[in-house]
């Protein structure tokens, strides 16, 4: 494994230009700028016109993600997003950064041309950038499940959990999340906490999620989950929980908090305070974005019904839980965990395969979703309080 060393000591497994729109009104221009070289220029952004400290923090973390080598900020000009602060945060890391304000740049065509020229220069420079050796212990890996069905919790999710155990044993930091999909798992999860105070924090995070979703009137449960045999949110949760493996839970983080050392971390993704901005994560990529903001180099994505998404900035490994779905969507799937149901592989074997794939991904191999050009990204309004001292026991 080799990576690109950043000024904060972290290492990237990719070296891309982030093209970030700072309001939806600048999205088209950003997309056109990146469109000339989608392999090397990835579009991210925040659509809102009104200020939100969470979105500001997410964009700062994402623009300084270890997989990012240079940043182009595309502003319309009148949005509230603090582009000056974002620019200075990126600049302080030593990364090349440029701001294009459409209203001051002559409009759509000339802004696109200026952006494409700048990105092309950066791509040349990044291609020549030196790499350094990288160890598994320097990796941060996230996991999500999406399009879950009754197979997810018995094949793909426990196999991802085994891969997590191997990564944690090798010193990596692993993040599992979606407290709204851990409802019903509070008791078994808190027993795995590193300290009693952390156990209380884990329980409180799930209880917060249960209250939040009760107010919304629906759980984190899509109609397709029921088609696939799942009946209740707590049943879906128990299956999702399997992704966490067996390791001790070292800490509770919130989006943008970077794990201080190796170990297993739960990410609390449900906003604090009263219900304000709607569903915590409106679709799977919102969760991937939050784990990237916490430094995840790549994401393990387990799917039963058959999600096809990837992500901007950090590669996604797709793990098919259901062998029938794998047969239909094999071009999108990196791993067929459904073999476990057919007696063709053990969970341990699939877990090892996932672990090996993480290592090869970090050594330059591209995942299926990367090859297919998937670069989904979504960031919406949220609000969080900082984590308390019990969340990260020393």
């Amino acid at each position, binding site marked *: 494994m080799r990576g690109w060393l950043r000024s904060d000591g972290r290492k990237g497994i990719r070296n891309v230009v982030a093209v970030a729109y700072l309001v939806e009104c600048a999205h088209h221009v950003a997309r056109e700028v990146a469109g000339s070289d989608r392999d090397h220029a990835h579009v991210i952004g925040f659509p809102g016109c009104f200020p939100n400290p969470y979105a500001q923090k997410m964009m700062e973390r994402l623009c300084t993600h270890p997989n990012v080598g240079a940043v182009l900020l595309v502003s319309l000009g009148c949005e509230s997003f603090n582009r000056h602060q974002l620019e200075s945060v990126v600049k302080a890391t030593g990364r090349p950064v440029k701001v294009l304000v459409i209203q001051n740049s002559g409009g759509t065509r000339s802004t696109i041309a200026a952006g494409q020229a700048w990105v092309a220069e950066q791509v040349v420079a990044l291609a020549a950038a030196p790499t350094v050796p990288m160890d598994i212990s320097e990796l941060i890996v996230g996991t999500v499940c999406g399009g879950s*069905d*009754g*197979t*997810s*919790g*018995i094949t793909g999710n426990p196999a991802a959990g085994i891969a997590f155990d191997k990564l944690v044993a090798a010193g990596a930091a692993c993040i599992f999340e979606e407290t709204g999909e851990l*409802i*019903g*798992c509070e008791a*078994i999860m808190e027993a795995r906490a590193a300290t009693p105070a952390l156990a209380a924090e884990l329980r409180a995070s799930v209880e917060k999620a*249960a209250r939040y*979703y*009760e107010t919304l*009137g*629906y*759980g984190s*449960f*899509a*109609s*397709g989950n*029921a*088609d*696939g*045999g*799942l*009946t*209740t*949110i*707590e*049943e879906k949760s*128990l*299956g999702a929980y399997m992704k966490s493996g067996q390791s001790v839970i070292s800490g509770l983080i919130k989006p943008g908090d970077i794990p201080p050392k190796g170990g297993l971390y739960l990410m609390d993704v449900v906003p604090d305070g009263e219900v304000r901005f709607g569903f915590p994560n409106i679709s799977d990529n919102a969760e991937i974005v939050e784990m990237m903001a916490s430094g995840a180099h790549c994401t393990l994505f387990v799917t*039963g019904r058959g999600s096809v998404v990837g992500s901007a900035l950090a590669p996604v490994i797709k793990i098919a839980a*259901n*062998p*029938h779905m794998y047969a239909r969507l094999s071009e999108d799937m990196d791993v067929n965990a459904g073999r476990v*149901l057919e007696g063709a592989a053990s969970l341990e074997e699939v877990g090892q395969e996932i672990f090996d794939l993480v290592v090869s991904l970090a050594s330059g191999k591209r995942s299926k979703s990367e090859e297919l050009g998937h670069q989904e990204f979504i960031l919406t309004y949220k609000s969080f309080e900082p984590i308390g001292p019990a969340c990260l026991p020393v």
Partner: protein
Amino acid sequence: MQTDPRLILLSPGDTVYVLRDQIAAGEAVMVEGVAVSFAQSLGLGHKIARLAVAAGDRVIKYGAPIGRASRAIAPGDHVHLHNLVSDYTPTYALNPQVAQNRGD
């Protein structure tokens, strides 16, 4: 007691089995020594009752409660939206055959 090998038990105290393969409509399936069949096909990942559960009692899977029986469940019953409800939030299903629980 004999049970079809396509039904897997995830944890010893579970009241349900999980299907690891499809079952066709009308096909005879052994559940705890009793042959049962279903009017509609059932997709893999669906649940079939292993033990009787009285209305209001908990249904157990993975060794943990996944909700309560909304009506009495007998061994061999398909367990889904028609006889199992969450203790937390209600479940939304778009497709009418699933909402009425006629399977996949």
